[in-house]
Structures are given as C-alpha cells and as structure tokens.
C-alpha cells in the first residue's frame, strides 16, 4: 500500500494550507475583537449616557436622558421604532446592535468638565460602556472627548456648540451632530440685518468658557460684517444666577442691541432679568432696543416665558418641522413623555442611532472600523434633511434654523417660530479655519 500518493500529498497539502492559513483568517475576521476597550462578550452591549442632571444646564440634561432612553428602546425593537423607519440607512432592524441587546448606564456630569470626565471614566472602567454619549456644555464635551480619545472609546457628543469641539480640540474618537457657533453666526447675521438694519451697536454678555468665547467671536464677526459696531464684550461666570450687575451697565452704554451668549438656565435668567430692566421697552440711538439669544431651545423659551417673545436665535432642530422624520420623532417622544422633544433630545437620540448604525455597517464594535463607517457618512430621514458627517473634522453639515420667540402662541408647547433656514451649503466652511488635529484612531485597552 502506497503510503503517500501524489494525489494524497496534494489533498493533504491543500487541507494543511486551508487549515493553517485561510481557516484561522476566517475565524479571526474579528481578531481585533479582543484588543479594544470594553469589547462586548455577552449578549448585551452597554452604552454610557453622561448628562447634566444638576447644574446650569440640568433642564437640558433631563430631556437628553429621556431621548437616550427612547433611543435604546427603539434599538431593541420596543415602542413605535421612532426614526428607524425614516432613517435612510436600513442597517438597524430593532434587534439591538450586531445581535446584542442594548443596555445603558447613566451619569450626572453636573455641568462641570471635571465631574463629567470622572463620570465618563467610571462608566468606561466600571460599567464597561463601549461608547459615551451626552453633555450639554462644550467644556464638558471637550473634556469627555479627550478622555474617550485616550481610552479608545467613541464619543458621540450631545449639545455642544463651541467651534472648538470639532475645531482646535477635535478628536478622532469624537463626533458631533449638533451645529456650531460659526454656523449660528452665518445663519443669524442676514436675518438680524434685515430685521434691525445695518447701523446698530451691540453689547455682548458672554459665558466665560469655550462655548461663550467662540459664540461671541462668531456673532461679532457676523454682525460687524453687516456694519454693526461692538462694545467691548463682558464675560460672565457660568451659573451666575443674578446677572443684574452685568446688565446695569448696558443701560447707559450707548448699545441698542444686547447679545446674550448664554445658554440653559443662564440664558433664561439673563434674558428675563434684561426684560425686568425694561430693555425691551427702551429706545436708544433713535431705535428700539433689541435682545438676541443666538442659541435657543424650546426648554429655554419655556423657562423665559413672556421674555422670549420676538427674540431671535438659532436652533439645530425644532419639533414643529413638517418632514416625516421630525413628525415621527415628535409623535414617539410625545406619546411616551407627554411633551414635545427639545433640540438636545433630538440630537442625542440621533447620535445614539448613528453610532448603532455605524457598528452595524462596519460589522463590528471595533472602534477604528466604526470610525471609518461614520466618517464621510451621508444620511437623511433624521429630521435635518440631507446630512454629511465630514471626515476631516467629524462635524455634521446640515441646514441651520433661525427661530424667533413666538408672539402669539396657540398652545403651551408652541413657543418658537422657524423664520428662516440657512442651507447646508451656506454653513459649510473650510475645516482649516479652526485648526486642530484629529489624532490617531489606534484602538486602546481601557
């Protein structure tokens, strides 16, 4: 009996090659699966939601939490599915992500960068969160984004409007769906010019941190391009509560427009206090005194009440938009919580779905592959029209809404009017103007 025929040799050789070469490659298609932070090994995958449940932006954080909880329900096939049916990508099926049920942990960032960073670290190290989503303050978002870059965990930012988030402080692991201060300036400038004319003197009160600074700069550039003059801006501490000592000098400054670069409770307080000072009833330089709140939300409009009427600002999204996706999200959110969603609810919900969708399209949770899936991703059906996640800075580009406090609301939720829309093309800019480096996408063990 021939021990080894030529045929047998070839068969054995092929089997050996397959056995030692190709087959292991098949099994190790996801070999990176063992080499990244919080690789989910069980039948669940954990998302980390970090929000301001206390502090100056707590109202926003509460709505953010509602939306993110709803997103998890929809990802797991519960409820009416929300934006899953309208989303242009059809990778999400309502069966979790990559066959794993989505679980989540929450944290309170207290509207403080250090507390937010600690909370995010806890969720990554203790709770095994594979991604972090949240924040309502740019200082918090930038701090968390930097931590996530170090730990190799993807960060889907919530409401962060500073140019720095996807500018000088951008990170490979950080992604922002929300628009930014530069885009607010581009969108709001022409509307202010038309409404208030070209000969105005603006007084800025600015939250003293990254978001306030970049918003002040963006608004200053936009209004000075119209021909307005700017009086030296005044920086105010975040969470000041009583802004009266900063508002009193406005009255005799010669300014006829007050631009409040404040958000959340700060925006509500400074606006209502400015109105208490009679600023809306004043005439200066022969013109009616006006107040502008460049970044505004439904929650702020609700908090400011009467004071918000007629005040211009910009928004990322509004529940009264008529497209199918906005209607579907409003219906889904309203049915669960008995109130319409705010812009922070919308952007946070969308971010959670975009991350899940990227994992599905990448076929893995391995962060470098998920990053590739998000970079340059073009989508629609999320309430903002056609949107691009730009690969060079991880900033989303879509239409920007100019809103105005409604003068005659028809019901308790009818607070803002969308008065203009700046197109995606008009708010697109060269990423080089804000500098910054994305950094490496190297996976890390946390």
């Amino acid at each position, binding site marked *: 009996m021939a021990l080894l025929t030529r045929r047998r040799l070839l068969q054995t050789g092929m089997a050996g090659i397959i056995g030692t070469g190709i087959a292991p490659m098949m099994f190790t298609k996801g070999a990176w699966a063992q080499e990244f932070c919080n690789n989910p090994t069980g039948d669940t995958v954990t998302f980390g939601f970090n929000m301001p*449940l*206390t502090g100056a932006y*707590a*109202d926003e954080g*509460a709505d953010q939490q509602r939306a993110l909880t709803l997103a998890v329900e929809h990802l797991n096939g519960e409820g009416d599915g929300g934006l899953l049916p309208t989303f242009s990508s059809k990778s999400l099926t309502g069966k979790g992500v990559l066959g794993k049920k989505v679980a989540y942990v929450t944290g309170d960032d207290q509207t403080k960068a250090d507390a937010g960073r600690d909370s995010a670290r806890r969720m990554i190290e203790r709770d095994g969160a594979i991604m972090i989503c949240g924040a309502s303050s740019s200082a918090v978002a930038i701090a968390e984004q930097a931590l996530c870059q170090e730990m190799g965990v993807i960060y889907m930012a919530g409401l962060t409007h500073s140019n720095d988030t996807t500018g000088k402080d951008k990170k490979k692991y950080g992604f922002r769906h929300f628009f930014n201060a530069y885009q607010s300036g581009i969108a709001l400038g022409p509307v202010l010019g038309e409404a208030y004319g070209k000969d105005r003197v603006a007084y800025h009160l600015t939250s003293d941190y990254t978001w306030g600074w970049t918003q002040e700069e963006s608004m200053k550039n936009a209004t000075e391009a119209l021909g307005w003059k700017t*009086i*030296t801006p*005044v*920086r105010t*501490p975040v969470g000041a*509560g*009583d802004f*009266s*000592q*900063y508002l*009193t*000098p406005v*009255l*005799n*400054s010669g300014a006829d427009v007050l631009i409040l670069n404040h958000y959340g*409770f700060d925006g*509500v*307080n400074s606006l*209502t*206090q400015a109105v*208490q*000072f*009679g600023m809306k*009833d*004043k*005439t200066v330089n022969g013109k009616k005194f006006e107040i502008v709140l460049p970044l505004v939300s439904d929650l702020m409009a609700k*908090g400011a*009440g009467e004071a918000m009427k007629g005040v211009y600002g910009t928004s990322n999204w509004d*529940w*009264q938009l008529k497209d199918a996706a906005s209607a579907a999200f*409003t*219906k*889904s*959110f*309203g*049915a669960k919580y*008995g109130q*319409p969603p705010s812009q922070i609810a919308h952007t946070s919900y969308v971010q959670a779905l975009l991350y899940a969708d990227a994992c599905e399209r990448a076929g893995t949770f391995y962060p470098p592959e998920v990053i590739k899936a998000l970079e340059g991703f073009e989508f629609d059906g999320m309430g903002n029209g056609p949107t691009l996640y730009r690969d060079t800075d991880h900033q989303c580009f879509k239409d920007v809404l100019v809103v105005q406090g409604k003068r005659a609301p028809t*019901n308790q*939720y009818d607070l803002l009017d969308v008065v203009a829309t700046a197109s995606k093309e008009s708010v697109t800019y060269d990423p080089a103007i804000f500098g910054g480096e994305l950094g490496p996408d190297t996976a890390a063990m946390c």
Partner: protein
Amino acid sequence: MDAILAQLLNGLDKGGAYALIALGLTLVFGTLGVVNFAHGALFMLGAFCAVAFRQLITMETVTIDPSQLSPWGAPLEIKTPLAQTWFGEFGAVMIEYSVPLSIVLAIPVMLIIGIAMERGIIKHFYKRSHAEQILVTFGLAIVAQEVIKAIFGPNPISQPMPTSLRGAADVGLWLGMGPNVLTYPWWRLLYFVFSAAIIAAVFAFLRFTTFGMVVRAGMADRETVGLLGINIGRRFTIMFGLAAVVAGLAGVMYTPLVPPNYHLGMDFLVLSFVVVVVGGMGSLPGAVAAGFLLGILQSFASMAQVKAMLPGIDQIIIYLTAVIILLVRPRGLIGRRGMMES
C-alpha cells in the same frame, strides 16, 4: 453720572440680600456663639416656602378637550389652577401675588425650623469647639438641600413677580434727570426697601423692647444676666428662630430675581461669612454695613471699563476687600473686642 448711580442702585439691591443673611448669621453668633454654616440653607428654605406656597395654590385640575389635539395626536389636556376653580377672581389674585403672600407661610415655618434646629441639634454643641459646630451645621445644610432636592427636584423653579411690579421704574425722573435716563426694575427697588425695613425692624426690636434689651445684655455678659434669674437660654433660642425668619424672608423675596434651586443656600454661604468677617464678628451694624459695602463694590467691579482694566475682578473683589480690611482692621469694620479672640 447716571451709569454710576445705576451701579450704586444695583449694589444696594445686592447688598440688601447680603446684609439680611449676614444679619441673621451675626445674631446667632453674637447670642449663642455658634458658627452656623446652615444659615445659607435657611435662606434657601425660605425661598422654597415661596415655591411650596405657589405649588399649593396652583395645583391643577386637568380636563381633556377632545376637540384639540396635542402635537403627537393625543387629546389636549387643559389645566386650571384649583385656587382659581375654587375662589374665582380672588384665586387669580392669590396666584398673581403668590410671592409676597407666601411671607405669611414663611414666618411660622421658618420660626419652627429655627427653634427645632436649635433645640434638636445645635444646643448640644454650645460647649464644643467652633470646628465641631461648623461640621455639624454644615452637615445640617447638606441634609436640608438634599431634602429639598428630593422633594422639588434639582432644577431651578421660576417664581413670577406680580404683573404690576414687572418692568422698570424711571428713577432718573424722580431725581430730576429726565425720562429714561436712569431706570431700575421695580422688584429690585422693592427688595432694597424690604431689606432696609427688616433690618430696621430687627434693630428696633433689639433696641426698644425689654426682650431685646435682655438679649443685648446677654450678648455682652451672659453669666451676669443668668445670675439675675433671667432664662437667657430661652431668649437666645427665640433669637435663633428670629434669625431663621430673617434669612427665610430674604429668601422668599429673592425668588422672582433668581429662580431658586436646592443649591441656593450654598451659593450665599461663603459670601455671607465673608460679609460677617468684614463687618466684624458679632457686630450687627458691622454685618449690615459690610453687606451693603460688598454689594456695591461687586456691582462696580462688574462694569465693562473696570473688567477691561482688571479682568476677573468681579469674581474676586469681595475676597480681596476681605483680605485688605482684615490686614488693616483685624477685628473687621466694627468688630467687638473678645469675639473669636483667645
């Protein structure tokens, strides 16, 4: 000139709040010798008396209007305040003036809280060191704020001021400066007048009543007053309750200016201690003078011209003043000899 006057008015209105809190703090320190770190919490509890009063009278009945739909397609809920349903026009007036009316609730509530706090916990620490007093009262402050957080939530709750007191008064016209030259919000002017009235009432109570005379005597020499057969301890307990009422009323009237949240007391605590130290430990006129002085300085430090020269000065002016005054006058502006001195 008008800009300076406007800042001065602002300083007086801010100083009114500082002076009221510091006055209560000094009363407690001067009578009982206790460093009360829970005093800011009493200010916050007073503010929440106003919140609770409003929530009580605006409890709503909900009716469904099937002819109107909410944005998500459900029948619209029409909410009507119970006070309005029950009392009609008078109920509407109660809601409109809920903040000033809540003073009626705040006085007994704060008096009870103050006396209970003193009898229940603080009296056990009279003979302990100041460090231990600080620890226990700080603990009390944290408990109070967590209780409020659990009941009312973490977010600030707006308290609208009456419509008739919204907007600004033309102060310039009163001073013969012409119309719209110097305007200032009505409620802030009212707050200053209210603070001045409360301060005057406390001083009058201590100066012109027998009770006040005994208390002043006890502050000067507790042992001798005791030897005369007067139960000075009971009077000091009542003074603690009175200090709680003063702080509470300051909190009630502050609510339309800044929506209160559970952290309000802590925001004022450090500031009010600085006011007391600058005024002089145990000195009631010192606390009032320092309150107004620091309010005015803080207001002027927030002007754009000042901030342009010294960025961030508005954040440190109070502490900087405290350092300078303590270097020049270690007992504070009107400090009493022997207070906090070995």
